């Protein structure tokens, strides 16, 4: 049970760094409002291009500051540092995702997926042939479902250009 019945149970770790980052960035954006928006002469306040960004940013800064003031713990604790490290660790998987995005237009959707899924599965510690096979099978199924059946717009890989004519158009259209 939470030690404070008024508040719902929520982790205390990381609340302070998140609130500080959020409010700090909001304040920086608010300070930029003169440069990043315009004031149209002879236009009513509600129709000004600056009106809604101003409302939103003032709300972000104001409510963010009140949230910090209302936090159950306003001093940095080492749990906050550990939580921030957890946030940074996830950047590795973000990197995996961006590499996948980058290689799809180069080697093609199907080859990239067949490489990516088992590689990430291996990275996560699954070493059995069944899991690696399952991940490759899942990748093929996704490509076939979305690109071949539902015809979603994903361009063919640059390497498909080196395929023979008949195969090239088939691969560009379906894989």
């Amino acid at each position, binding site marked *: 049970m939470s030690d*404070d019945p*008024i*508040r*719902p149970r*929520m*982790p205390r770790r*990381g*609340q302070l760094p*998140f*609130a500080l980052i*959020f409010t700090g960035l*909001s304040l920086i954006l608010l300070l*930029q409002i003169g440069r*990043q*928006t*315009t004031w*149209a002469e002879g*236009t*009513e306040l509600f*129709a000004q*291009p600056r009106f*809604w*960004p101003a*409302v*939103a*940013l003032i*709300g*972000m800064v*104001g*409510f*963010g500051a009140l*949230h910090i003031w209302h936090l159950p713990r306003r001093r940095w604790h080492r749990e906050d540092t550990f*939580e921030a490290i*957890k*946030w940074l660790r*996830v950047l590795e998987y*973000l990197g*995996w*995702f*961006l590499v*996948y*995005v*980058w290689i*799809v*237009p180069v080697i093609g959707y199907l080859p990239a*997926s067949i490489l*990516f*899924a088992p590689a*990430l*599965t291996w990275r*996560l510690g699954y070493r059995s042939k069944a899991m690696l096979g399952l*991940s490759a099978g*899942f990748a093929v199924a*996704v490509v076939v479902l*979305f690109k071949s059946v*539902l*015809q*979603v*717009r*994903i361009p063919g890989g640059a390497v498909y250009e080196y395929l023979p004519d008949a195969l090239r158009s088939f691969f560009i259209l379906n894989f």
Partner: protein
Amino acid sequence: MDLLYSGIEVLLRWDVGLALLVGSVGGVLIGAIPGVGPAVAIAILLPATFSMEPIVGLTLLLGIYGSSMYGGSIPAILINTPGTAVNALTTYDGYPMTARGEPRRALSLAYSASFFGGVFSVICLILFAPILAKIAPMFGSREIFLAALLGIVLVVVAHRGHTLIAAALACFGIFLNTIGLEPVKYSKRYTFDQAFLSGGIDLIVVVLGLFALSQAFLLLQDQDENIRTTRLRGGLFQGLRELARHPRIAGISASFGVVMGMIPGVGEFTAQFMSYTYAQKSSKRPEDFGRGSSEGLIAAETANNAVPAAAMVPLLALGIPGEALTAMMLSVFYVHNVVPGPGLFFYQMDFVIALYIALLVLNVLVLVFLLSATPALVQVVKIPNRFLGVCILILSFVGVYSLRNSATDCAIAAGFGILGFMLKRLELPIVPIILGMVLGGIMEVKLRSAMTRVDTPLDFINRPIAFILFVIIVLVLALHIRRAWLDSKLKKDRKWQTKTSSTRFGTQMYRRRSSLSAARGRKVRATRSPYAPRSTDRS
């Protein structure tokens, strides 16, 4: 009657039927896998539905939305882990039933209650549609602005204990919507002279980042659990008979679901807790609640399944989504230039009726599927968490990249994925960002057009519906401020009680009574124990 026939005619098309079947079966499967949920599935499938006709795409998404909660009850009952967030209350009474050897009864009851809730809400809405068609045209720009504002206010105040950060995140959503070219003056807003920001930030990119990618990151960092499922014995039809013995609880819970579903920003959680509380208070055996009560299970499941159909009301009648899933569906309308709102009820009532009948058929399909396939479906919950993360990451790529084939979109979505990951770890709400983005856009457009027709600020609320909406907003805010003030007073009292202590000798002794008596008790026990060493200083 003609409208009903034309609605049925739309549904008899093979592509609509297939979308309904795939959506309902897919929704059950997605719901049964803890850690995926309908939001992730709908976010991933959104771009794929853009190439379909609006009715086909919406039927597919509605199928997932309406059936995921049926599937979500399976892990909630069998392994005490809700498949979707709204099945959390199902674990209270569902899992204790499994623990005492009645998993079939619990599942059967959950399916029957869900079916009743779903069908009840659709029937209510079909009957309610003609009234809605009359009320909807009364909503002009100012009424829609006020309804959108009410939606944001309700979403914020619904997050009790997180109200301030929910408000800040809703404002963040409004801010995201303003980035790019301003639609009237064509001036740039917060583009930082970057070409990729001139077109603004796409809602789908944000949705995929906050819901799908963040969930993938969360699962990839998670640990795999060793899940043991129970063997199912007995019939699955007994739940229908048991449900028939509690018509009052089922009916009132479904009514709570319908009413709460129609109010923007409220949704399943409030409906569930209200119906659960009602069921407990009115029960002859309230002590059974939380220990495997059939009434508790009926209340929770009926209420949450009555919400999806009702949640379509503000979306279809006013073009205002009440929560994240209907906000995503709004983009399907926009892509096909179908403008939800009063006009939809006036000109395309057959479309609306077709959607309602689709929801009705969906409930029948799902019930039949679940009654026949539950033993096989139970195996789905065994998929390892981290492997699920890989699957979601691969599927998220399709969702983001197929929008505009833009690597920049993927990078932005990944950025929102990190933000969503942080919010989920901190248990802070994500929905206010999405609703802020959608409702912020609506408010900007409607306020601008409304203000051209009013001379004084009071003219803004001089129409009956605008006035009622304004009064509701003021009331909601006043009640919330009162509640916050009472909470803070209570908190202060508690703080005062623990920090301020009397210095009187008697009070000090009273506070030390346990330690004093313990020490004295030890001494007495030592002297009376037959095993105590003999001592010469006995008193």
